[in-house]
């Protein structure tokens, strides 16, 4: 399975990828995670590739090959759409982060992001649910909950993978963020 995690620098995409890496190992799969470090983190677009398979060769997810795009920001889901496999799933946070090019009036934020995403899209009130769990910073784990439910992954193993990957003080909050995300799909 190819999971492309997209967002804006500082949103916690790398931690999410790390959890998925841990999950894949628990499921006995080969896994490669490709991250962006450095320059791009200063508020720019970030993309993290997670591939889990019996054997993984290239660490990258290319055009038309992502089974899932996990978008932490609405417009970023649009930006990376060419990577989606035809008929693939998009899970997108409703939250918008407006880039300065828009603030300065040089560019426009797309008016209707939803109309530009494929039918197979799940919208998530990620920040809202994360606040309920205790912190906006848990939005990434909310999305992971949605993804686990929507893709029919092993819920228990994913929770264990989260416990393994986050600092002990944040375990409880992240677990409830996961539960809220997971529940958002079943409801």
């Amino acid at each position: 399975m190819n999971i492309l995690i997209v967002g804006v620098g500082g949103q916690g995409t790398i931690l999410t990828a790390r959890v998925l890496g841990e999950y894949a190992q628990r499921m006995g799969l080969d896994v490669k995670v490709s991250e962006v470090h450095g320059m791009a983190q200063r508020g720019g677009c970030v993309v993290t590739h997670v591939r889990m398979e019996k054997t993984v060769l290239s660490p990258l997810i290319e055009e038309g090959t992502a089974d899932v795009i996990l978008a932490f920001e609405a417009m970023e889901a649009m930006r990376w759409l060419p990577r989606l496999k035809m008929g693939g799933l998009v899970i997108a946070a409703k939250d918008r982060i407006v880039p300065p090019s828009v603030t300065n009036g040089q560019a426009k934020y797309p008016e209707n992001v939803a109309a530009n995403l494929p039918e197979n899209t799940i919208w998530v009130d990620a920040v809202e649910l994360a606040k309920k769990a205790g912190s906006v910073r848990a939005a990434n784990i909310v999305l992971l909950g949605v993804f686990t439910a929507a893709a029919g992954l092993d819920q228990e193993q994913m929770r264990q993978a989260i416990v393994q990957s986050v600092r002990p003080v944040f375990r409880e909050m992240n677990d409830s963020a996961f539960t809220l995300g997971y529940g958002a799909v079943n409801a």
Partner: protein
Amino acid sequence: MIKTMLLGNQAIAYGALDAGVSVLAAYPGTPSTEIAETAAGFETMQTQWAANEIVAAEVAMGASVSGARAVCCMKHVGLNVASEVLFTGAYTGVNGAMVFVVADDPGMHSSQNEQDTRLIAAAAHVPVLEPADSQQAYDFMRLAVLMSEACDMPTIVRMTTRTSHARSVVMRGEAWPQEKRAYEKNVRKYVMAPANAAFRKTTLQDRLMAAAEFAAEHGLNTVHKGSGKIGIICAGIVSTYVKEAVPEADVLQLGLVNPLNEKEILAFAQSVETLYVAEELEPHLLNAVRSFGIVCEPIDTSYIGELSVRKIRQALGLSVPQALPAFTDLAPRPPMLCAGCPHRAVFYVLSKLKATVFGDIGCYTLGSMPPLSAMDTTLCMGASIGMAHGAELGMGRDFARKSVAVIGDSTFFHSGLSGLASAVYNQANTTVVIVDNGTTGMTGHQDNPATGKTLGGEEVTPIKIEEVCAALGARSVRVVDPLNIDEMETAIRQSWEEDGVSVVISRRPCVMIVKKREPAFKVDPDKCIACGRCIGLGCPALLRENNRKAMINSDACIGCGLCARVCPVNSIGGKNQ
């Protein structure tokens, strides 16, 4: 056996540890930085941030000559800085192992150019190993140590962004002990005076070719048998693309990309009908294979950017997955200065003064972006001071009254010191603004000689930038808090008027290292006249309402108050208002 998921860079560090390396020196640079950061946690290894890459290489070379196993790490452009050690180190050879780990950046994800380390290595006659994933990064690091000692040569492990920053499973082997060879004085080998160097050069090719034999003995190059129709020679990350793109191809994956083994290449070429070479950047393998008189074609003829599974399939006329079209008019989201970044205030003043800004490399390079657009040049680390000086020579004294060099604290110690000394010596009238944010920000907040902390976290006496500048003969040194924009403006104007080299140190710590944040500021919509002056700061916490008035995102604002200082009608208030 320990099995863990590691970044390629972490795997390099563990490879060095388990190869008995005792000394590792580095200068930060994406995508190489995490190697030293990982090694800093190893108790048995001496690790350090050197002031720049050549110092890192010299430190490692000193350790090697003394008899210990040593490594230096850098990004590709760092090898330009360290290349003197590489070129002449190939003549002297080593005692304990000496390994350069160099991370290239095809596609320029975070670099000022796209140079190819293999060509520099070929020019220096030094062997290069190139891993494809984290497991190979670990294994090849260990082999590079053995090869260095076996061939009496410094060796290079070439990483690329995609191997450095991909995480995959690594099985660590048994750790080798920290073996140290005895130190022996050997003037003919280590003093590269002309006669000795001439002698050492006669041994260079034999030592280099011994690396090809070492590679054969240790199975560094591997053949993946296919149908015999198409053969592809490749290495590193590209070999993962090749194997995925054309599973039926015969693949010769080179672990050693310099020098090549003629016999081995010839045998592979004869085993297939059509031969291709797949590589990113320069046609290094292609030219080497052709030099053996072998007919082969390149997969990629653009010599720019990265390869991919898709590009390889397209080049071979194979089908590729269907994909949705890209949205061409999406708002761009380039990297930018953080909310509250102290650099912003400096560029606000420079933009107001319409200064010509000879910039340098660091977070502050983002001052070149709109809306501040306050930087005219960025070339290479340390270039700002020399270029500002040169512009005065070219255009005259008046030009220096409107121009400044802007350089960061880490960059200043990397390569600004010699530029400053040279400007003073040659009686320049350069104004140098040192943006001291107390960290090496761009590469992820590493310490440097001015921060008072080492790579290992030890507290040390910081070197004071103002004292260094004074000692180097700067005519004046002014230390200013950049948030005092009026004082900053005055300091720059005064520096422009006085003769000699003037230094303005803009001192305020990076917001990412100061954990404490002030309460967010607020815009009073009744007072705001929608003039856009605050918006012109390009702060990500500042937005425009539908009526074009300013608004502050309180989640993003860290309360620096710069916007309140530039507001002409006092409509922005903070904790003190």
